[in-house]
């Protein structure tokens, strides 16, 4: 099916729909404003800060992910499966919950500062640029690890066996086998993390410690809500789009798509081991596990006591969120597959744009577009499902595309010679080899949709709510403990969805 006319047309149609979903509302806001506005000097400093922290966050997350992913790829240990699964957790954590977890670990009354104080050592301060970076690494390091781990998995085990037979030192293994894979995957990983951090809003403001840490999204908020300058808000939204698109295109250019060649799909084995490597891998894995697990454990401790007396509305909101999440997973996976199959860079960049879409501008634009025909508040759950699906698309694509390329590069000629085309090629060659990334992608899409507050915050329906909205409502009504418990429920459900889909994918080992 890949590169068949049907695939190209279908992919093109989906790409067009995604572009319309992002650009249509933007155009509506511009039209309503009667033209673009010019950003103020403080907006420009917000743009500079946003790019700077996003670049730092991407580089840090990507660099730290290399040793972690490699250690995970070459070691077999008890709990490895659990660790890989748990790596999905931080990324899908709702922002409120993640900040609470990080503060419980690194905050003034946090575990770390209490421990330091017990030893008579000075405390650490989390607020500032380093706090923002810490949070962004916490969110994105696991994502980067998962994406790179798939890269290591895609290297045929025969390569490493050959390296072991030739008694290659680790440096040579890295240069000859791992570097080409990283060269291919890393630009995409960096671009995704950069784009995520570019539109980060609450994390940056809260942990950044003050107005010096102002992001474009807050500048948009100010232009819109404080100054009611729609033109300026739209201009800033366009700037954000351009930056992410440039990053995506740059990533595509840098990522050389020469495949690893095909192997026999043997699981990777430990090749020539050295004690130094063993210690290094153990240290890397233990530190990562602590960094990822500690905030989550603290969240559980905080939320557990109030879990028993949660208001009934929380449960109904949880059901609503589940329905929305499943609907948007279906949309995201089908659309992602349609975009990935034609293997066109342009489609990839279009999907990446959704990462940079400002929820405020998107929501307002949708409101302006829908308002003449219907009351947006009446259809907010459907709108939320579609917008959440679009937001998950880049991750779906990012996890599907490399394996699709590898499959086509490795087996495409054989399939061609067998005249395996169209649906049959999809059914017998591509889907079986994509089951693992498909499961991962569906899990991510479901969990992200579950945890995302999204556009519903702009049109909160009085008679119903999603779980994230309900958490904000509880907090707004002073019910912080109930909110903490509801956050825990949200984390459990998001992670549960992710785990189920991911497990389906991973247990489909060929």
């Amino acid at each position, binding site marked *: 099916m890949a590169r068949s006319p049907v695939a190209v047309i279908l992919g093109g149609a989906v790409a067009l729909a995604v572009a319309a979903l992002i650009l249509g509302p933007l155009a509506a806001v511009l039209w*309503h404003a009667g033209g673009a506005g010019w950003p103020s000097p403080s907006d420009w400093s917000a743009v500079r800060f946003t790019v700077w922290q996003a670049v730092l966050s991407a580089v840090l997350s990507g660099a730290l992910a290399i040793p972690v992913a490699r250690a995970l790829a070459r070691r077999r240990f008890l709990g490895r499966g659990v660790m890989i699964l748990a790596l999905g957790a931080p990324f899908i954590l709702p922002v*409120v919950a993640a900040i609470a977890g990080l*503060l419980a670990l690194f905050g003034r009354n946090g575990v770390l500062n209490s421990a330091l104080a017990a030893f008579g050592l000075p405390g650490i301060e989390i607020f500032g640029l380093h706090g923002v970076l810490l949070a962004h690494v916490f969110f994105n390091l696991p994502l980067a690890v998962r994406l790179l781990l798939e890269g290591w998995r895609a290297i045929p085990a025969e390569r490493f066996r050959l390296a072991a037979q030739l008694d290659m030192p680790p440096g040579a293994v890295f240069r000859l086998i791992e570097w080409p894979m990283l060269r291919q995957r890393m630009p995409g990983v960096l671009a995704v993390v950069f784009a995520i951090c570019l539109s980060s809003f609450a994390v940056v*403001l*809260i942990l950044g410690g003050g107005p010096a840490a102002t992001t474009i999204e*807050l500048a948009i908020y100010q232009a819109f809500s404080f100054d009611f300058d729609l033109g300026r808000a739209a201009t800033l939204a366009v700037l954000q789009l351009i930056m992410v698109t440039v990053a995506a295109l740059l990533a595509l250019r840098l990522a050389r798509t020469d495949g690893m060649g095909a192997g026999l799909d043997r699981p990777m084995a430990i090749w020539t081991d050295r004690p130094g490597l063993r210690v290094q891998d153990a240290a890397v894995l233990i530190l990562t596990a602590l960094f990822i697990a500690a905030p989550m454990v603290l969240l559980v401790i905080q939320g557990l006591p109030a879990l028993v007396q949660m208001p009934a509305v929380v449960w109904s909101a949880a059901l609503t969120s589940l329905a929305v999440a499943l609907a948007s997973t279906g949309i995201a996976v089908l659309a992602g597959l349609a975009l990935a199959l034609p293997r066109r860079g342009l489609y990839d960049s279009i999907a990446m744009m959704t990462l940079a879409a400002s929820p405020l501008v998107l929501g307002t634009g949708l409101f302006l577009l829908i308002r003449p025909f219907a009351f947006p508040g009446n259809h907010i759950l459907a709108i939320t499902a579609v917008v959440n699906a679009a937001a998950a698309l880049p991750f779906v694509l990012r996890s599907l595309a490399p394996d699709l390329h590898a499959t086509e590069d490795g087996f495409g000629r054989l399939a061609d010679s067998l005249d395996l085309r169209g649906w049959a090629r999809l059914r017998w060659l591509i889907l079986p080899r994509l089951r693992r990334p498909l499961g991962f992608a569906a899990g991510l899409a479901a969990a992200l949709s579950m945890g995302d507050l999204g556009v519903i915050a702009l049109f909160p329906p*009085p008679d119903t709510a999603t779980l994230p909205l309900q958490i904000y409502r509880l*907090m707004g009504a*002073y019910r912080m403990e109930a909110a903490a418990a509801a956050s825990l429920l949200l984390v459990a459900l998001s992670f549960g969805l992710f785990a189920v889909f991911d497990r389906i994918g991973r247990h489909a080992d060929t």
Partner: protein
Amino acid sequence: MKHLITATGLVLATQAVAETPVLNVYTYDSFATEWGPGPAIEEGFEAQCGCDLKWVTAGDGAALLSRLRLEGEGTEADVVLGLDTNLTAAARDTGLFAPQTVSADYALPIAWSDDTFVPFDWGYFAFVGNAEDPKPANFRALADSDRRVVIQDPRSSTPGLGLLLWIKAAYGDEAPQVWADLKDNIVTVTPGWSEAYGMFLDGEADLVLSYTTSPAYHVIAEEDASKVALPFDEGHYLQVEVAGAVAGSDQPELAQAFLAYLASDAAQSVIPTTNWMYPAVTPEGGLPDGFTDLVTPAKSLLVPEGDVPAMRDAALEEWRAALSQ
């Protein structure tokens, strides 16, 4: 026959709809949730109006005004409820509001005469902390102390903007210096009230910008008297929340009746323990227990609404310059 029954049903249904006029009240989200005043006010008003009150919600007061501006003349709102005195000038400028005719014996700390907006509750911004901790008595003492405070961003939060105007109203040209002195006390700036208040409860800060009425929640709902508001001797900034009828409404009488109901004892007695603000008219039964021993500022500060737009832009620049260094 079957078609006839269906047709009759449709006609009856249409008549039933026609007989029950719908009053669209735009408000902010927390007002209409099950913990807010919304449900009780809806029930009370529907019992007397023979109408269907429908809440349409936006995120907060500022979002409410934005929504109204986006919809313009075509808005379906009959009443807009939840603007505050920092937004009324901009709201008035839209020209979308009708004159109001409600008269009531308001218990506001200032004289209220407004031909457009009806006040329904009010409160003072204040720093809230723990009862046993040191209590700086003004901004300068706070700046000199080692107290850690968490505040909200004026660009995205109502209390955040309130603090900006509070310091500007109290200190005028010295406001930038006050902010500069406060800088090392400010732990961080959050997008909204909820995040800041949650961080304070978790012990991340000693003080949080909130309302003098916040301790009443802990006393009444949690029987916890450990939270107190700090009285500041330069006075406290006042927030009055108002509602107004929309001029283009197809239910002008109902809209006015709703504004009158809002100022009535039935609605006002619901406000304190649902919106955690002072009611605009003291209920016949008096204020609830937790409200009677709250801090009452010696002086109320309020920037006249016409001066707000220019003042907040200048104050925002000063705030940003002082805290960005």
